[in-house]
């Protein structure tokens, strides 16, 4: 199957698939005769899962829900006719010949720290399906629920410094638009995200319930824990279920937070200087990104930040005016901040969206859903500085060079985190599933 004919489940599930061979192979252990097993193995193409070195310690995944127009952001078409170019005037970046959208002036000034992929492509034009692609690296399937990047990273890398490995700022968005893309899929719910539940932009922002109540001493808390273990023992001895196991693991995570002052401080924006908070911007974009930096600095493995609404079917001009400037300031400051702290090379910052938007401006001065080609911005964490990878054609309608599928993007992200995406994880019913199926690590962007 062609790498871009991705997620074609018909091909995945019918005929002599690799999986089928594997099952037969598994059966071998249960009494299949040797010659048969050997014959099956001859057909198997399970790659050895080699260990890969981590280039990044953490990922900040900034997600711009709705489908940001690549033409107005990372991939403007300054030389196209007006109905394709759109209403905004692109700005020059500090990379020769590279332009960004009008509202990305600050970002344009740090373009030499970024890698822009201008040839992302997939086939899902509905929000929830596109979101699924970009959060899991899998096309949605009617039969299997796939885990999000954060859940896989939690599963593979685990807890560091008592902090939850996967945090959503401000929360995992659910409902129809988000689908179940940010969840744990076939993995245990124990690998689910920690949602802040409140917005860092609020003046009284605090993550609730992180610390013990004031009138509970550590000694008393230990007694409580002891009693809880005793109380739980009877029930635990009788019952088994994923929900119960997951709850247990969340209690362990909670104990970790309670006992670590340092871990809790990761969530405290007041520990930042007012000056820096101003520079990020005292708004949703600024404070969310600043908090994301604090979190990865303290040991969170993957932070998903969502910001804005980019579904600009109409009046794209004002849509960008309302959403983009704050993002521009915050994002540019974040990259600079990470770099100043020497963290950028070990932190992958990925800006993505479910898809791009149609090449031509529509009758309501907007653009509609368009997954055929769009852009993703990467920075740090082992990717090159100052690069444009791949391109779209003159009108932003098709990938012109080096098309990148969600599978490839996912595989690259996992590789940078030191996770070999060829590895299989076990789903319900003893069904092994590749972390990413298909795609290639994008070698061209690796530093």
């Amino acid at each position, binding site marked *: 199957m062609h790498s871009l004919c991705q997620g074609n489940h018909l091909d995945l599930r019918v005929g002599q698939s690799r999986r*089928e061979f594997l099952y037969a192979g598994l059966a071998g252990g249960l009494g299949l005769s040797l010659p048969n097993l*050997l014959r099956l193995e001859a057909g198997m193409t399970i790659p050895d899962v080699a260990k890969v070195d981590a280039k990044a310690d953490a990922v900040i995944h900034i997600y711009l829900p709705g489908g940001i127009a690549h033409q107005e952001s990372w991939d403007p078409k300054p030389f196209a006719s007006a109905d394709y170019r759109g209403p905004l005037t692109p700005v020059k970046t500090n990379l020769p010949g590279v332009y960004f959208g009008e509202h990305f002036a600050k970002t344009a000034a740090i373009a030499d720290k970024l890698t822009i992929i201008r040839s992302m492509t997939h086939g899902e034009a509905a929000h929830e399906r596109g979101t699924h692609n970009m959060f899991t690296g899998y*096309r949605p399937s009617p039969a299997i629920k796939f885990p999000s990047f954060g859940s896989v990273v939690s599963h593979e890398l685990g807890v560091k410094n008592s902090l939850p490995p996967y945090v959503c700022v401000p929360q995992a968005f659910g409902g*129809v638009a988000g689908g179940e893309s940010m969840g744990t899929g076939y993995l245990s719910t124990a690998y689910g995200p920690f949602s802040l*539940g409140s917005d860092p932009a609020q003046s009284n922002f605090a993550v609730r319930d992180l*610390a013990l109540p004031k009138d509970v001493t550590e000694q008393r808390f230990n007694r409580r824990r002891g009693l809880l273990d005793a109380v*739980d023992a009877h029930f635990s001895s009788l019952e088994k279920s994923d*929900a119960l196991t997951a709850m247990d693991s969340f209690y362990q*995570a909670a104990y970790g937070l309670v006992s670590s002052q340092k871990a809790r401080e990761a969530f405290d924006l007041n520990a930042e200087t007012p000056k820096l908070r101003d520079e990020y911007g005292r708004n949703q974009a600024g404070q969310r990104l600043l908090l994301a930096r604090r979190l990865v600095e303290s040991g969170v493995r993957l932070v998903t930040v969502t910001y804005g609404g980019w579904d600009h079917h109409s009046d794209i001009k004002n849509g960008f005016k309302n959403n983009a400037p704050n993002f521009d300031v915050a994002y540019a400051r974040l990259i600079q901040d990470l770099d100043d702290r020497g963290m950028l090379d070990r932190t992958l910052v990925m800006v993505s969206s479910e898809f791009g938007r149609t090449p031509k401006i529509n009758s309501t001065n907007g653009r509609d859903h368009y997954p055929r080609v769009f852009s993703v911005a990467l920075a740090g964490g082992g990717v090159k500085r100052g690069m444009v990878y791949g391109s779209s054609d003159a009108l932003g309608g098709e990938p012109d060079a080096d098309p990148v599928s969600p599978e490839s993007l996912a595989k690259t992200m996992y590789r940078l985190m030191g996770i070999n995406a060829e590895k299989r994880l076990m789903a319900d019913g003893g069904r092994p599933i590749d972390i990413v199926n298909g795609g290639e690590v994008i070698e061209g962007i690796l530093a």
Partner: protein
Amino acid sequence: MKTSSLTSKALLGIGLCFATGLARAEQSGPVDFVRDIQPLLESKCVECHNPSKSKGKLLMDSGEGLLKGGEGGAAVVPGAPEKSPVYSRVVLPHDHDDIMPPKGDPLTAEQADVMKRWIAEGAKWPQGLVIKHKTEEELKALARLKEKLNKLESIEILPGTLSLETQRDSQRVLVFARFNDGTTKDVTELSELKVANAQVASINGVHLKPGQDGATELSATFNGKTATAAVKVANGAKDREVSFRLDVMPVFLKAGCNTGGCHGSARGKDGFRLSLFGFDPAGDYDRITREMSGRRINLAIPEDSTLIEKALGEVPHSGNACFDKDSHLNKTLIEWISKGVPNDAPEVAHVTGIEIFPKQAVLEGQGETQQVSVRATYSDGTDRDVTNLVVFMSNNDPSASVDKEGRVTSHDRGESFILARFDVYSVVSQFIVIPEGLKYERPKLVEANYIDTLVNEKLHKLRILPSGICSDQEFLRRVSLDVVGVLPSAPEVSEFVADANPKKREALVEKLLQRKEFTEMWVMKWSELMQIRSTENNQGAYYKNVLLYYNWLADRIGKNVPMNEIVAELIASQGGTINNPPTNYFQIERETLKVTENVAQVFMGMRIQCAQCHNHPFDRWTMNDYYGFMAFFTQIGRKATDDPRETIVFNSKGGESRHPLTKAAMKPKFLGGDEPTLQPGEDRRAVLAKWLASPENPFFARNLANITWAHFFGVGIIDPVDDVRISNPASNPELLDSLGKKLTEYNYDFKRLVRDICNSMTYQRATQVNESNESDKRNFAHALVRRMRAEVLADAVSSVTNTPTKYQGLPLGARAVQIADGSVSNYFLTTFGRASRETVCSCEVKMDPTLSQALHFMNGDAAHENIKRGKVVATLVNEKKPDQEIIQELYLRTFGREPLPKESEVVLKQIAESGEPRQVVLEDLFWALLNSKEFYFNH
């Protein structure tokens, strides 16, 4: 020709005399081909030497092939084993380059010897016999069959009636055997097939071919049992023209050309676009025949058409080769191009439905196979075997997988559904795989009502033993939480346990059903489905309207108005949003597309969103269905009144639903039903309302029954409940059907259905599992441990800790279940996943555990603050109750059971040793109880 092909007869031989034969050939006496040689060839040779592979240009599937030989000359020289490679190359040293078979174990000495003797005796091959490769698994399956023959109950020919129209028609015949242990087996190739009148039809392999017009009978004989099927042939001598819609379009579906990832994508792929899953044949015809003229289709040299070259992989193609040159798919395309790419005449028949055979199979052991066949029916009354044009999928490959030809192979124990898709239709067949030689005896189970009968029947098929019945305490707690959303109080627990009435559980259910909290629970659930929520920015409904809407619903459910009447009143509602509150349904959602989708999703359980832009990929819904259904909602008028909060919803008598492709104004058509006759200006919603909530709409009652079921079991018979589709089938269709029928019979009084459910043994099963039902989540073999939903949990915390809560619009101490407005919430409810009612999706209610929940119980006010505020422990201590009594009281309050002796001991020891006041330690116990899973899970 009076008999069917020799193939079946000869194969019959295997079925009967086959044993573990492969290893043990007779040492003396003449060699019997069927007994001694055929299994050897089938397992060791034919895999590579067959017409599709022909290694070394040698065919070993027939006697002729062996004599003709391959690159190295004849494979068998009768009478001269040493000159026959079939013998000489199998006895080479094991590490010799030329040894046969090249992979796997060499032949044993006995096997080689019998081969030698067979050739020496003249290498006799039964006339006309063609053999196929069989894996050792298959050979084992055959051996297994032999052991089971005494259990054979019946055989059946599928399809049961066979009709052939036109010369090119052909019908695959299946012979399906049932055994008295409930298992089944495909015995087609082992049966003797005979057509009574060979003039009318003949059997070629397993395919029935037409002869002269007329009627006759096909009989199948297997192991002494005979089954028959009527055969009808019409126009058997005439040929049918190749048709674009009937023959060519299916090729694109079968070969995967028009899937979303390839040419079915909205922009096509590499410059060629097909409609997704073929929803637009007219458009596809134009694109194929009019674009890139002379190249995509080359009328002069059909084989040079790009369409063909790409599909065969002869030129670079992103999708690589999709089918072989010799395949029937290619032949169809070539024939169509050769005939000049004819478009269909307008009167060409269309597909009206497809059927799958068998509809259910129970396979024993791994490596069993069962062929499935699919037959399409057409609007002109004809039918066709479309098995080789169907796309097959299994929803559970680890248990049963299916190949492109529709052959299902069993693997691990489990259940899977094999989906077949053709044209716009999908059907499923249920496959159950049970382990071989399982020690299982059907248990004798108490059955309270039809629910138990149907659930147990399914468990028997799966060979799963259900868990036992839960204890009185467990039952009281479970049924109280499920029916009324309230924990039983400590005295209630003691009283119920002490009650000697043998029917006390039934009496309890009866008592609970009469409580007002029962109605409140369902008002809440329906409020979620009807999206009762206010919006701040006046985009939807005002708070006051929302209260009126909620009160209307509460009033109806409180008076036990049948659900069909409530729904009919809602859907047909007209008037002011204050005067007639159900009209708010059309105020909260004003977008016609959304209203259409919501009604389908909530009241029928169907997600038809996909069909807005293209035919549903995994279900039967087409764009015609979607826009036909939408036509019921295009004439909703809305106008403002003097009161800014009130809108009038009325029948505007104008406005049509336009199909985006054809631009045709679609006539209102019930989803999955008929087109009603409407007078101009007649209120379309009133017509829909009447149908929607009536027995004529089979989905309504089943959907309602499934929603009710899911509430009590934590998982629907179809799950999620609002995703009913052919590719997401019911785990127990008979059960769902019965529940739906009962509900209709009960005149849509779902209270009676709840009574049936709660009194069933199935509902009363324990959560503890046994080895056989451990992994079962969908067949109700044991109760599932479920976290309490947000509102019920909040109320439980309030009542256990004696801390009344204030919610907006409700008096202090009211329950969270009673909150009218979806936008009213608090941190606790949001954290534990209360539905915001922004969408109708059942996924709005979140039951997954999270870290925030753990933190909130551990550090937040849920436990610690509420313990202090409610003073439960403080009061007991002030009353100078002894420690043991307080511990008991706290356990009963939170868990609904007494503490175990060792549990009390731990606490008493802490009180004695910690040096803290006993109140502190007892409050810590209370904290622990509230933080325990035994409290906030229903079990």
